[in-house]
């Protein structure tokens, strides 16, 4: 496959940046999207150019490090798939592909496609935890949890914190990320004692970090590589309302 790429190149945080055109030649349809970029970078290095900077770590879709907006969609066109798990067979020979970083005031560009997602960590630091001494591993079934609640908590815990929800949101809101963590902990007995304080602190921190407000477009849900549902945002809202009366 031969492809035309328009890649966002930006020297550093202070640079304004621009889209630069590249040709990706002899790409195998079995390559992942990141392997395709590795190939382009190899050629850039051998011809004395500056390779395209992008994030990746596990390359098996579980760490949340990779993330680019591919043709206007965070993580590219395939549903429930991270950029590293997106294969070139999802494209056709001769395609033009636009590659941009996740855009948000809270995600400053460090270089090219690499962004600083520390703002998501700061939302977690504001309350995305439980304050107990963990000690040794507890006995299984020492705390009984209804199957349904355990399933919902696990569904919410699937969030890998990649930030695709923020990138897709027309308002640049981190509501789906925050809602996933709030739901995960609020559904379990260990998370209940701090549930009210948590939802207030985390949503407050979200705003402080420069994310927008949710206005229920559900673009986040469509973009999420882990299938985190917008109904978790409804759960967050319920937790917030409950917190006002307790």
């Amino acid at each position, binding site marked *: 496959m031969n492809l035309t790429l328009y890649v966002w190149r930006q020297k550093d945080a202070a640079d304004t940046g621009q889209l630069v055109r590249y040709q990706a030649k002899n790409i195998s349809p079995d390559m992942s999207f990141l392997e395709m970029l590795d190939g382009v970078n190899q050629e850039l290095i051998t011809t004395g150019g500056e390779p395209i900077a992008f994030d990746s770590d596990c390359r098996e879709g579980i760490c949340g490090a990779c993330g680019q907006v591919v043709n*206007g969609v965070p993580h590219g066109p395939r549903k429930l798939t991270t950029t590293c798990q997106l294969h070139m067979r999802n494209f056709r020979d001769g395609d033009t592909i636009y590659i941009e970083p996740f855009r948000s005031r809270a995600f400053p560009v460090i270089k090219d496609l690499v962004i600083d997602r520390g703002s998501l960590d700061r939302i977690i630091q504001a309350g995305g935890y439980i304050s107990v001494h963990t000690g040794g591993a507890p006995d299984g079934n020492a705390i009984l949890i209804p199957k349904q609640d355990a399933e919902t908590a696990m569904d919410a815990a699937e969030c890998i914190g990649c930030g695709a929800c923020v990138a897709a949101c027309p308002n640049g809101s981190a509501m789906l990320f925050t809602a996933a963590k709030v739901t995960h902990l609020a559904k379990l007995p260990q998370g209940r004692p701090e549930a009210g304080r948590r939802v207030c602190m985390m949503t407050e921190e979200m705003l402080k970090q420069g994310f*927008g407000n949710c*206005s229920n477009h559900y673009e986040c849900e469509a973009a999420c590589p882990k299938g985190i549902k917008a109904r978790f945002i409804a759960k967050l809202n319920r937790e917030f309302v409950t917190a006002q009366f307790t």
Partner: protein
Amino acid sequence: MFLPASSVGRKLVMAATGQLMTVFIILHVAGNSTIFFGNLNAYAAGLHSLWVLLWAVRIVMLPAVILHIIYALQLTVENGKARPVDYMKKENRTSTFAGRNMIWTGAVIGTFLVYHLLQYTFQVTNPALSAYRNLDEAGRPDVFLMVARTLQQPLIAAVYLLGVTALLLHLSHGIQSSFQTWGLNGERSFPFIRKGGSAAATILWLAYAAIPVTIFTGLLLR
């Protein structure tokens, strides 16, 4: 934390005031529809005889409208700032034209509302047709005459159609959105609420648009 300073808190105010206005809009169109049964004047006279109720509704609606506008502006400005550098290419998959343009359809509705109040409540735009000046055979203010004569004019009929169409777009996103904001949905009811919101908005649009359309085309006569 002070409720109206928080992200979710302000959205709750938006949703609550929006729902209040939606209820008003439903009652309003129910009242309007008496025009099709030839007893709009009787309805209007009846409503004004219940002046305590009428003023109670007005006193509740005014702050609701003001709060809805203030928070709409504030949230829109904040959301705009959240993405200082826009995408060169962006594909929207679930968001709708209506959802992304709430501030603009809201602005159209707001402007229309001012005109609508000046026309039929304060009755200053067409003073010769004012219902207070013209009484019907039963001696009641002739609201039908005022409505019919004004909506027979193409420009005024067009303004009303534009106003109710902006309302259709606004509600097609707003109704489902207000349920989500209050968390009044679950996994099974969520798809139903999303479709139901658009369906309710469409029904309201048909009911409202029927008045200028039937009057302008001459289908509705006294």
